[in-house]
């Protein structure tokens, strides 16, 4: 027995050493991603990032980058022959040779790039997450289930109480989703890819997932990972943006007493039914998203407690854990080393920044047009990361004036943000050709 054979027992280490010999960048990236995964778990536990998503995602990143092995020729051939061929024929031939020799690196989690049905069926018998990826993720089922859960949690009464203020704020917050599109085109992205990365500015994870699947399936993995990583930045970064752009005197503005508006569940239900029908009529390509969101709202407002509990406690949490695990598993070193990823990282953060600035501009407009009565901080709540941005707005206002309450208005803008982001996603999907 040679030393090489003994090391073969621990294939995670052997593949790492093999990568150091043949592709050091991949090896270093594997190590970096393992540590990043640990950091995500830590930040999730600490509450800096969303724990429901970050803990499964971080752990999956550690596991997938540690658990790399030499795939047996059958599994490796399924992956090589089932995926789109590489642009470089020599590289493709090299990969095929490695696969045939049982020297190709891979994991037993899943292979997101495999497309051909017979290879997929083969891999579903081998990779344990492959069925979830192909039957629930890549067809948007998970995104729609999350959206249905959001619908059950939303009280659209906040929007119905002040529809114009809420929708206007939300429209200002779409600035990032619009401005990044031409910037990404200028950087060389295809229109579908540019639209998909621009949607990060909407700060709505399921929407980015939906948009990327429809318009830029090849960049689905990095765009979705970036979108969900950045959602944490909304909570951590927006307070600084608010403090930088709105003086404390304005942050402390107490809203005038609100007229008592009682919104009945009948009104909310009627709105959900009509809005769902109209939006599906206008944007059939985004109909699954609209339907899922408004189905959640309709179930909540109809008082169907068993359905509400099922969606909130089972579907939403079930979809979220699989979303976290799949996103983590997709963070493989080779995927992240794509040179486009660095540009996507910059564009994603820029998109969120522009959306936040747009929201504050909207807040200032509301402040000026209301005769300096409306607190401009409300504007940033139009960024549709429900309910994070509304909570951030209230927290910053409370710091400046503990007696000022803006949460109902902020939630109205926040929920409207979900609707306007869905509208913009629908328009992008309808107008932009998918990037293949």
């Amino acid at each position, binding site marked *: 027995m040679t030393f090489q054979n003994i090391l073969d027992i621990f294939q995670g280490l052997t593949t790492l050493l093999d990568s150091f010999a043949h592709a050091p960048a991949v090896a270093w990236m594997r190590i970096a991603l393992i540590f990043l995964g640990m950091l995500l778990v830590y930040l999730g536990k600490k509450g800096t990032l969303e724990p429901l998503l970050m803990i499964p995602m971080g752990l999956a990143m550690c596991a997938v980058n540690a658990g790399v092995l030499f795939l047996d020729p059958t599994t490796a051939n399924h992956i090589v022959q089932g995926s789109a061929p590489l642009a470089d024929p020599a590289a493709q031939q090299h990969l095929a040779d490695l696969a045939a020799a049982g020297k190709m690196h891979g994991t037993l989690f899943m292979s997101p790039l495999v497309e051909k049905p017979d290879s997929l069926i083969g891999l579903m018998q081998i990779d344990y997450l492959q069925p979830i990826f192909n039957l629930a993720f890549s067809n948007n089922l998970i995104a729609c289930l999350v959206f249905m859960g959001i619908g059950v949690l939303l009280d659209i009464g906040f*929007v*119905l109480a002040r*529809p*114009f203020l*809420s*929708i*206007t704020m*939300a*429209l200002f917050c*779409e600035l990032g989703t*619009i*401005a990044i*599109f*031409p910037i990404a*085109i*200028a950087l060389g992205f295809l*229109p579908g890819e*540019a639209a998909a990365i621009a949607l990060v500015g909407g700060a709505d994870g399921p929407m980015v997932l939906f948009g990327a699947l429809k318009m830029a399936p090849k960049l689905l993995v990095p765009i979705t990972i970036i979108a969900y990583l950045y959602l944490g930045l909304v909570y951590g970064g927006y307070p600084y943006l608010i403090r930088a752009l709105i003086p404390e005197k304005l942050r402390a503005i107490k809203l005038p007493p609100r007229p008592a508006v009682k*919104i*009945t569940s*009948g*009104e909310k239900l*009627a*709105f959900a039914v*009509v*809005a769902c029908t*109209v*939006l599906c009529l*206008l944007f059939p390509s985004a109909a699954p998203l609209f339907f899922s969101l408004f189905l959640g709202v309709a179930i909540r407002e109809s008082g169907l407690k068993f359905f509400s509990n099922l969606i909130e406690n089972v579907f939403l949490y079930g979809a979220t854990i699989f979303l976290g695990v799949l996103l983590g598993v997709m963070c493989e070193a080779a995927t992240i080393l794509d040179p486009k990823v660095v540009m996507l990282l910059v564009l994603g953060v820029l998109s969120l920044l522009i959306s936040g600035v747009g929201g504050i501009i909207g807040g200032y407009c509301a402040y000026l047009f209301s005769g300096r009565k409306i607190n401009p901080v409300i504007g940033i709540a139009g960024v549709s990361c429900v309910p994070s941005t509304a909570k951030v707005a209230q927290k910053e206002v409370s710091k400046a004036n503990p007696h000022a309450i803006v949460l109902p208005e902020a939630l109205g803008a926040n929920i*409207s943000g979900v*609707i*306007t982001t869905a*509208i*913009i996603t629908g*328009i*992008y999907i309808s*107008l932009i050709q998918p990037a293949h």
Partner: protein
Amino acid sequence: METTLMDATVQALIIYGVAAVIGILVALLISGLSRLLRIFLKNH
């Protein structure tokens, strides 16, 4: 056909314009529906 920066900017502005119009229509729909429903509930 390659999309130029100018084309993309125009497309983005059109998309924003359409989204704004639909957003305002949704707001109008909300306030109109609320009123209609209140009248309906009063009469029944």
